[in-house]
């Protein structure tokens, strides 16, 4: 009986085995690249806001402390977005007729709140608490990036669980002295071993129970 397939079909078969594997690898690679890319994570993508609020101006330029506006950051899990009243503490005097600030004045006059677009949005099954991080020496810029250089606000980190765990597994790499938590210009020591040594000292000083930091219920419940 004549062969059903020509001899060259073997090549096709081999190629498709190898090719199939390659395609699978390619799909996984591409998927994981997309997964980590700003397309999905929205890292480094500035969001449009009702008022083009600039941290660069307020923090970098005017040197306003984070807690002036985000008042609940030390007391609560939530670091609040300031009420219109906070804006008006200055802007009832400064830039009172700026067109850019029109929505703020409008809100103050009408009592209708501003609607900001969320930049840092954790999934609803993650329970992050600002107060404990701030109390234990995690600086604002550690997660929020160089906020003093952002003319509009964007997300600086992916907020992937792997990123959270970098610190929860080894907090010594990220902790800073207590008085530097709100210091946006603080830089860790350049020398790696020096940095780690200082970090380990802080872990001890802050009484951080590192073992506990990877309990699932620390963040998920």
């Amino acid at each position: 009986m004549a062969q059903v397939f020509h001899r060259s079909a073997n090549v096709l078969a081999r190629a498709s085995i190898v090719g199939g594997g390659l395609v699978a690898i390619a799909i996984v690679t591409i998927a994981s690249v997309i997964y980590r890319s700003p397309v999905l994570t929205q890292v480094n993508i500035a969001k449009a806001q009702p008022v083009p609020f600039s941290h660069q101006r307020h923090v970098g330029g005017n040197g306003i402390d984070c807690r002036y506006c985000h008042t609940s950051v030390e007391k609560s899990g939530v670091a609040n977005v300031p009420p219109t009243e906070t804006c008006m503490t200055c802007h009832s005097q400064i830039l009172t007729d700026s067109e850019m600030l029109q929505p703020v004045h409008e809100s103050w006059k009408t009592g209708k709140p501003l609607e900001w677009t969320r930049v840092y949005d954790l999934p609803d099954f993650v329970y992050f608490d600002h107060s404990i991080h701030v109390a234990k020496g995690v600086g604002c810029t550690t997660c929020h990036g160089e906020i003093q250089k952002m003319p509009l606000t964007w997300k600086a980190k992916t907020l992937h669980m792997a990123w959270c765990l970098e610190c929860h597994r080894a907090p010594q790499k990220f902790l800073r002295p207590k008085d530097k938590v709100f210091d946006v210009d603080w830089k860790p020591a350049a020398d790696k071993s020096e940095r780690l040594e200082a970090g380990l000292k802080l872990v001890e000083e802050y009484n951080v129970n590192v073992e506990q930091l990877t309990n699932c219920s620390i963040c998920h419940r």
Partner: protein
Amino acid sequence: MSPNDLDNILTDREAPASMSEHQDVNYWRHANEFNGAVTIDDEKHREFDADDPENLDHAGRRNFMKVMGASMMLAGLTSCARQPEEKIVPYVKPPEHSVPGRFQYYASAVSLSGYAMGVVATSYEGRPTKIEGLKEHPASLGSTDATAQASILDLYSPDRQESISHAGNLATWNQLVADIARAVGEIDTVDGAGLTVLTETTTSPTVQGLMAQLQQQFPEMKWREHDPMGNNNARMGALQAFGRITATKIDFLKAKIILSLDANFLNEGPAHVRYARDFAVTRSAEANADAPDYVAREHFAHDEMSRLYVAECSPTLTGAAADHLMGLRYGHVEALARVVASRVGVANVTADPEKVAALDGAWIDALVDDLTHHKGHAVVVAGEAQPPVVHALAHAINGILGAVESGLVTYIDSPEADATDQQGSLRRLVDDLNNEQVKLLVILGGNPVYNAPGSIDMAAALNKVPLRLHLTPEYNETSELCHWVVPESHALEAWGDLRAYDGTHSIIQPLIRPLYSSRTASQILSLVLGEDATTTDYDLVRRRFSGLYGAESEAKWKKALSQGFVEGTTFAPVSVSYRGSIPAETAAVPTEGLELIFRMDPTIGDGRHASNGWLQELPKPLTNLTWDNALHIHPTTAMKYELEQEDVVILKVGEHEVRAPVMLMFGHPQGVATLHLGYGRQVAGYIAKDRGFNAYTLRDESSPWCINEGVTLKKTSSTYLLARTEEHNNIEKSLQTQAQKAEDRHLIRSGTLSHYKEEPDFAQRLGHHAPERENTLYNPDEKDYAGLSWGMTIDLNRCNGCSVCTIACQAENNIPIVGKAEVAKGREMHWIRVDRYYKGDMYNDTVESAHQPVPCMQCENAPCEPVCPVGGTMHSKEGLNDMIYNRCVGTRYCANNCPYKVRRFNFFHYQIREGQDAPQLKMMRNPNVTVRSRGVMEKCTYCVQRINRARIDAKVAAAKIGSDVTAIPDGTLVTACQAACPSQAIDFGNINDASSRVSLRKQNTRDYGLLADIGTRPRTTYLAKLSNPSPALAGADAEAHTAEH
């Protein structure tokens, strides 16, 4: 059927397994288990509990592959989606003291049968989310009952009436004001004759003040009261005994001998939360003088406990807590009261010897002996269902026993706004209506068309009134017949006031503005008075407050707002004297034929909570029935009428009949049937409509609690599915030893007080012992963590089975309801269930019962953890068995492997089923707990959100002062179930702190682990139950005692 026939049936029936054959299992949960018809072995053959997936799925292999392939692909795609954009909407001007993300707490009160119970309401960013008890309030002492816990759901209920309506059309408040003004104007010309206000029982001083004003302005107006379940017999009993209506206050902390005459004081009435607490304190005997307890028991020695005698016509939780229980026909309770009265020395009381002969003589002897030997420490409590004469007799006995003298019983003026004969009030109302003497009828709350006795045609009477107004939280049968329907504000959204059972003036403080265009009773009364239509509920409450306290009112108001009640407003005792005349017994007690007993439903009350899904789905204490009512009868009575579980019968009384399903109730008095009121609503929302049958229609005005003549019962050929949870989540009770002999695992461990004193560690000797710690291939100390380590104890001796823990947990943890059909499949979601066990032959007159709340045990060697393929449940370094919902893929292996059956699976997206998809319900959710979707396993984690909050707060506080000690003071961190428990049966805390309550409780010799013999090392342990039988009646108990060993 003649008695001979009955005997034949009893002999012919398949001999029930007697206790001797089932020596291995002491306690049982349901009839099939007692009979050995269903064993856990049967269940073990199926991989999953309750329903078999193989029978559900008819797809076949190919379809299964197709569906699963598509599902996995789609599920994979969803994880690639970008998160939806969200908005942050800050305040314009933030309210004072508000910190975004933190709870705020307000002292307030909720109504408990019209009386105040102090609560602390939790608000999250302006939305009420939880209710807890108010520690300082006399009716709460920090605990609540299930209805108070569930009232948060009432606020957001999609079944609420949302707008004012007139003749079924939307209307405005101004239209209402004009119409009422016109009607009142017409009435006013004749001194107010024709104006009638109908209320339920209320203690509100504001309503009282406005009614007084109204009566002054319209001298001829009528105030009628109707409460289908109220304590009218207690009022009339006091009137009979003392010549005036008083309220009775009992200090159970002094009570060593208690006789309940059909009184369910642990579970019903305006003081039941307080009474349950005090009673639990008197039961907390410890063999060891140093055994730590944290309750003051000044009237008891450390190893002394109260003794409770209960005579009842229908099984209640108070009866379940009794040391000696007697099930009686309704009329025999009076006979018992009479014989006890005459024997303790009450003058001029006679008892019919024929009736007394039907009672257990030895029981009465022992009781009388106990009562007379504990003068000043003995008390008799009469139930609201019993006729006034029983209450009068109880007052007389308490007087003779020195209970009044010792302060055990105190009489005070009734805290009710108008304590009156409500039975008479209803009759006069109906007469007035039928004689067309009422021109304007204002109905403040309630649902008289539905809940008036069947002997009254309320609808026809109501239709004779030219103008009818109904203030109601939800549209119901009465609203349907009223011209004006005004939504009533919930206690969390309007100002108000109430008095507690002891008279304490409590303030109801709103946490949120009314969600709908609702009004309060006070506003309606103010409207009828012709006051400015913009008068607010706040104005009215303040005005009354100023009227009561005069010059001091401003300071008192401020204090009352922060405290929740006005200090020092407890009513002073009044001195009353017993008039010394009890009329001779009249009615004969029929001993043949079926007797019907009417009782308030254990969860939905008189029907007012019928729209509350949580209460509907809460397994009713003792029966474990959900979503329905039934005809509850003793198994022998059922046999007499040839009835089986779930058979439908037609009950006929006079012209009225209902179709009722039969449900067996063990220990129910024979020849007597209990019907729970509150079901069978026709005009209602999704949750309440067409559930069960309306037993009110059988009720008779002159004898509302019992019908003992002319009841006919006809069996039909149909059956009706009852969603009962008693057969769900069974724990394996016996252990196959190597000798192939089944041995009892002693899930419930109980003993008598005297036995406990002789052998304090009896509970720990029962059952098999846990394997040695070292008996493992792994590191035995692996789960011994330094620092915080959480544990729990549940004291079965304190637990009375009220099930408030289940509802508190449901409110705290965003637990959905699943609906009747799903409950019937064993899919109820409660994280903490209360297992009810019986002991003794199911055909006995009374059965001993025990209640065991079962949350997750947080096993140190948790069987659920290693079987999860995705790490969805992991052990935390604080000893918690964490659930990670976002990891769970729904294999259900964990639930299958859990020996305690405490894991719950979301077969559907329950959060939006069963009418629960209303957007307002989202406002109710606890923001700190994930709302689970379908396909996810869930369970108790000791309220880990509360633990995290407390831990973070402690650490932040420590960091602030530079301290390295992060202490969570013992007792400041409580779980939801623990906080709600009136009996303080649940303790929770750090077991690494040797001085914490929970550590001390775990050192108690009564402490034992459930199924500890399989080596799970549960962190939740139980304390054995004790009973205190009279030595004179010890014979029967000695038998039971032997059976235990």
